[in-house]
C-alpha cells in the first residue's frame, strides 16, 4: 500500500459514542495512528450498539462500533489507578493530538485539562468536542445527537407544513460536526509545524451545526422570517420532491428546473392531457398549483420503478434519482465501483463492510484497512512500541491492574 496522507500523525483518543469517534475516524482513515483509550470497566457505549453479532451485546460485537472505529488501536487503562494516570501522561508526551468529548470539566478533574497536558508536552494540540462548548451557562448540559439536533434547529425544519416535525433520523449533529473538527485539527497541526506552538480547540456541536442553517439565521435577522417546514418543496423548482413508484415503499425524487426540462419531462410521461392544462403552463402556475401537480406526477411515477424513472429522466438531462433504502445503498453500483464499502474480517463478528470517508485522494489512499479494534487489543503494542516499555514494567502494570 502506498503512503497515507496522515502517516506519522499520533493521536491519543479519549473520545466515545459518536461525534468524537467520528472526528478521529477521519484521521484514522487518512493514515494517522489513533490510540483509542478506554477502561475495561467502562468501555465506549457504542461497543454494544445494535446490530450486535448474533444479537448478543458484548464489547467486540457491535457492527457500528467497528465501522466508526476502523483503523484505530485500542488500549485499556484504569484512570482511577495512579499508574494509569502516569501512563496517560506518557501517551500525551508521545502524541501530537489529544482528543476527547467528555462532559466539560471531566478531563480537568482527572488532571488532564489542557493546562496539565501542556506541562507534559508544550506543543500538544488538544481537541474537545462537546454539545455546547466548554464555557457558558449551558456548558454542563449532557446531550445526544437526538436532543442536540432539536436544540440546533434541525428538528423544527424537518416535516410537513401541516404537521408536527418528523425529526431527521439518526443523530444529525453527530454527523455535522466531525469534519469541521478534524479539518480544524489539521490546520492546528500545520500551524504547530510552522511555529512549534500547540493549542486548544473547543468545538461546540451546537455552534458547528448552526453553520448548516446560516441562510435561515440571516433570513430571521434581516427579514424577521422564522423558517418552517416545507416538506420536500423548494422555491426554485416545480415539480421538486419525492414521488411514489411501483412496488412496496419504492420512491423516486425529481426536480424540474426550467422550461426545457419541463417539456422533456412531459414527453417522457407521454404528453398526458393534464400536463398541457393552463394551470401548469408556466413555472409560476406550476408553483402555484404544486400540490395538484405533484399528485398528477405521482400518477405517472407510480406505474414505474424508481430505477426506471431515474434512467428515463437522467437520459434526457432531468435530475431524478432513487430514494435509496439500506439494501439499495449496499448494492449501489456507483459505491461498488468506487469501493466505498470495504469488507474487512472482524475477529469476532466475521466479514463486515466498513464505510469509507466521502473522498478519494489521488496520491495517498484513504479508507478502512483494519476493523474497529477489540477492547484492549493493542494495549501491549502501544506500551512496548510507542511508550518503549520493558517486559518487566509491562508485567508489573498488568499485575497492578492498571490496564483494567
Amino acid at each position, binding site marked *: 500500500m502506498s503512503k497515507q496522507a496522515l502517516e506519522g500523525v499520533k493521536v491519543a483518543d479519549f473520545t466515545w459514542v459518536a461525534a468524537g469517534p467520528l472526528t478521529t475516524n477521519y484521521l484514522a482513515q487518512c493514515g494517522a495512528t489513533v490510540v483509542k483509550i478506554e477502561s475495561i470497566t467502562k468501555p465506549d457505549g457504542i461497543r454494544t450498539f445494535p446490530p450486535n453479532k448474533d444479537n448478543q451485546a458484548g464489547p467486540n460485537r457491535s457492527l457500528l462500533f467497528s465501522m466508526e472505529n476502523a483503523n484505530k488501536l485500542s488500549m485499556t487503562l484504569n484512570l482511577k489507578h495512579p499508574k494509569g494516570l502516569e501512563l496517560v501522561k506518557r501517551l500525551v508526551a508521545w502524541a501530537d493530538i489529544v482528543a476527547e468529548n467528555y462532559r466539560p470539566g471531566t478531563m480537568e478533574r482527572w488532571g488532564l485539562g489542557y493546562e496539565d497536558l501542556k506541562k507534559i508536552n508544550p506543543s500538544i494540540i488538544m481537541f474537545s468536542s462537546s454539545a455546547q462548548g466548554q464555557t457558558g451557562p449551558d456548558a454542563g448540559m449532557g446531550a445526544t445527537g437526538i436532543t442536540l439536533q432539536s436544540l440546533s434547529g434541525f428538528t423544527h425544519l424537518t*416535516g410537513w407544513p401541516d404537521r408536527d416535525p418528523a425529526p431527521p433520523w439518526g443523530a444529525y449533529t453527530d454527523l455535522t460536526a466531525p469534519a469541521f473538527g478534524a479539518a480544524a485539527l489539521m490546520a492546528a497541526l500545520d500551524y504547530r509545524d510552522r511555529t512549534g506552538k500547540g493549542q486548544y480547540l473547543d468545538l461546540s456541536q451546537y455552534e458547528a451545526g448552526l453553520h448548516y442553517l446560516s*441562510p435561515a439565521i440571516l433570513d430571521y435577522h434581516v427579514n424577521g422570517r422564522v423558517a418552517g417546514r416545507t416538506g420536500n418543496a423548494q422555491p426554485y423548482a416545480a415539480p421538486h420532491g419525492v414521488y411514489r413508484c411501483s412496488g412496496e415503499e419504492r420512491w423516486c425524487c425529481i426536480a424540474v428546473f426550467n422550461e426545457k426540462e419541463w417539456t422533456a419531462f412531459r414527453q417522457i410521461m407521454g404528453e398526458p392531457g393534464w400536463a398541457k392544462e393552463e394551470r401548469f403552463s408556466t413555472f409560476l402556475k406550476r408553483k402555484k398549483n404544486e400540490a395538484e401537480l405533484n399528485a398528477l406526477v405521482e400518477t405517472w411515477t407510480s406505474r414505474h420503478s424508481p430505477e426506471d424513472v431515474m434512467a428515463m429522466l437522467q437520459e434526457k438531462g432531468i435530475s431524478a434519482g432513487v430514494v435509496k433504502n439500506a439494501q439499495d445503498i*449496499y448494492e449501489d453500483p456507483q459505491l461498488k465501483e468506487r469501493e466505498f464499502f470495504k469488507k474487512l474480517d472482524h475477529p469476532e463478528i466475521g466479514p463486515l463492510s466498513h464505510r469509507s470517508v466521502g473522498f478519494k485522494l489521488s496520491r495517498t489512499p484513504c479508507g478502512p484497512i483494519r476493523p474497529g479494534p477489540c477492547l484492549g487489543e493493542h494495549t501491549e503494542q502501544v506500551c512496548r512500541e510507542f511508550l518503549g516499555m520493558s517486559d518487566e514494567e509491562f508485567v508489573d502494570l498488568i499485575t497492578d491492574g492498571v490496564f483494567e
Partner: protein
Amino acid sequence: MTNQKQDKNMGALGPYRVLDLTDEKGFLCGRLMADLGAEVIKIEPPGGDPGRSLPPFYKDDPHPEKSLYYLAYNASKKSITLDIETTDGQDIFKKLVKTADFVIESYRPGHMDNLGLGYEDLSRINPRVVVTSISPFGQTGPYRNFHSFDLLCSAMSGHMFITGDPDRAPLHISLPQAYLLGSAEALMATMAAHYYRRKTGLGQHADVAIRDAMIKTTVNTVPMWEYKNEITKRGGVFWTLRGEKQRVLWPCKDGAVSFGMHGGGFGAKTNRELVKWMDSEGMASDFLKTIDWENLDMETATPELYNELSDAILRFFQTHTKKELAREALDRGVMLSPVQTVADISESTQLEARDFWDEVEHWDLNVRIRYPGAFIQITETPCLKTTRAPHIGEHNEDIYIRELKMTSEELAILSGARVI
C-alpha cells in the same frame, strides 16, 4: 518555515491562498477555509455567480448582491470575475495557479479537464497545488454524470428513506443539507492533502462525493441490512435506532422536546434523574421509582413496559413549557432539548455568553447583519471574524492590476470582451 513569527492572528491557515471556483455545492468549503485564515478568492463568471440568485434575499429583493444564501456561504472571501472557458481566461487562471496553494471546484466531472485545467494540467504549472473537486457522486463511476440537485444527493444517501412520517413520502431537511455536508467533507479532504504536501512537497487531487459524505447520517442501517437483512423504515417520531421502537419527540405544553429513553449505563443517570424530578411533582408512580435503570435493556424491554414508561413521561412533559423543561433538565442533568426555531436560537444565552455571533457591517445596505461566528474556538489561532461577502469582482483591481501587473487598459479590454 519553522518558528515563523506570527504576531497578529492570521488564523491557522494564514499563509495560504485558495482559488474557489465552486457553486453552491462547495461554497461552504472555502468559507470555512477563510474562517481559518486562508485568503480565499472566489472566481465568478463575469456578471456574477449563479448562486447569487438563491433565496432568501435581503428584504426579499432578488438582487445579485442580496442573496442571503450567497452572503452566508461566501462571507470572508474575496471576489474576482473571470471566464475560464475562454483562452484568455485560462491563461490568467494558470498564472494565478502558479502561486495558489489550493484550487476547489464543483463543475461536472471532466469539465475542468476539457478546459485544459484538470489536475494534471494544473500540477504541471504548480506541483504543490492541492485541487479539490466536489461533485454529487465523484469523478468516476456510472453515476458521475448524473444531473443532480441537493435533495437527490440526500435521497440517494439513504437518509431520506428513514426520515419522515410512515404514511407520507420520505423527507429531506427543509433547508437542503447535502451540499453543506459535502463541503465539510471537502474541507477535511483538502486539509489531509495539505498535510501530506507539507511533508513531501507534493500536491494531489481530492475527489469528494457529496452523496458519499451523507451516507454516514444513516448510522447503522447498512449493517442492519448486511447482517440482519432488515431494512430500517421511517417512523416519524418513533425510531428503531436501538432495536425496539422508541419515541424521540415528546409534546409539551407549548411545543415539543427531544428526549431519548436509553437503557443500560448510557441512559441510567438521565432516566433516574427524570424520575426524581417527576416524583418531586407527584408524577412518578411506585413502579417507575423501583426500576433498575442500569439493567434495563431497551432492546429487550417488552412493549407493555415501554408504553408504561413513555405514557408517564408524556403526561409529565405536558405539564410544562419547553423553556421550563430545558432549564430544569440542565439543573438536574437530564438529557433533553427543546425543539428550537431560528428565533429561539437567536435568543440563546449560551451562544451570547460564548460570543458566538459575528455582527457584520454591510455598508452598501447600510446595515449590520448577524452571522454564525467561529465554527470552533481555537486558542492561538482563533477563527477570523466574519467579513461581508464580496461584491461581484470587488477585488479585480487588487488581483489583476496590483498583483498580475495588468494595465487598466488591458483590464478594460478584457472586461469588454466579458473575460473579466
